[in-house]
């Protein structure tokens, strides 16, 4: 199955969630700034990258993890993919779309705008990293929910 974590810019919340899913970021400890900076795509995507699915890795159940910045498509993104998948006969078990915006706090928003939209990386990056550290609990909850309610029953089926 392909798991698609999506957020506004595909740089912070979707990347953090995907990294935690893959075990690149610990669930039990708040990641350091260095650890976050080492995650690929973290605070790096530009407007040109938006709308492209980026591969982050395979998890231990063999699912492929992707991230995407879907900007203002927001609530339209998921129905659009479901509809397109149905029309092109892609089975709905083959993918999972997860919006990571509910994990985002205002510090991440401010830092993200400064770093990505305005291009003031020196100021925005430390802010967005601090915000991501503060939001760590939200990501833990999201990933736990996905691993326990969505992926485990899935594994039991086979």
């Amino acid at each position, binding site marked *: 199955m*392909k798991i698609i974590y999506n957020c506004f810019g595909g740089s912070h919340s979707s990347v953090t969630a995907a990294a935690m899913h893959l075990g690149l970021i610990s669930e039990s400890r708040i990641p350091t700034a260095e650890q976050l900076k080492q995650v690929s795509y973290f605070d790096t995507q530009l407007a040109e990258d*938006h*709308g*492209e*699915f980026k591969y982050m890795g395979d998890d231990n159940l063999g699912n492929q993890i*992707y991230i*995407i910045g*879907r*900007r*203002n*498509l*927001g*609530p*339209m*993104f*998921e*129905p*659009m*993919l*479901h*509809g*397109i*998948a149905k*029309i*092109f*006969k*892609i089975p709905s078990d*083959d*993918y999972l779309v997860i919006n990571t915006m509910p994990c985002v706090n205002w510090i991440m928003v401010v830092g993200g705008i400064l770093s990505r939209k305005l291009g003031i990386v020196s100021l925005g990056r430390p802010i967005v990293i601090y915000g991501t550290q503060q939001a760590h609990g939200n990501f833990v909850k999201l990933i736990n929910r996905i691993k326990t309610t969505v992926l485990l029953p899935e594994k039991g089926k086979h």
Partner: protein
Amino acid sequence: MKVFYYCHSGVHASVITAGIHLGLLPQNNKISERIILELPYFDDRQGWPAGTPFFIGEDEKGNQVYTLAVGNERFLAPKSIRHFLQLFQSSQEELYLVDALKYTTAQLKWGGYLSLELNMKFLGMPLIMAAIRKAYPNYVQQVERLKVELGYLN
């Protein structure tokens, strides 16, 4: 082949262009409000969330015609649809995305917003109808050009 007309709401400009494509609307400018309101999904998502593709009909060559809402992301949405199909190695030769926002004015966008999101049809509808009337010849031309490109007309 599957032809997708996309606009802000997926139920206004895209339904009009899809209607022209399918011959549900006349090629000349003699459009009445009644005939527009009879189009499937016009100003009505029938309970589906925005972004859901709507099947409008099958054209004379057996191709399926759909409409799609993309909000303000007229460039990003087609890009992510193509990427999504690429991920699943689904053939994109089947896919044809048409920008129905090309000749759409802000008047239609706000009319649609009033009618659908704020549920004020008495305010939105006159704006929508006026905007459609104004842009109608352009829509007809756009569909005609597409049909030439796809080899329907010579």
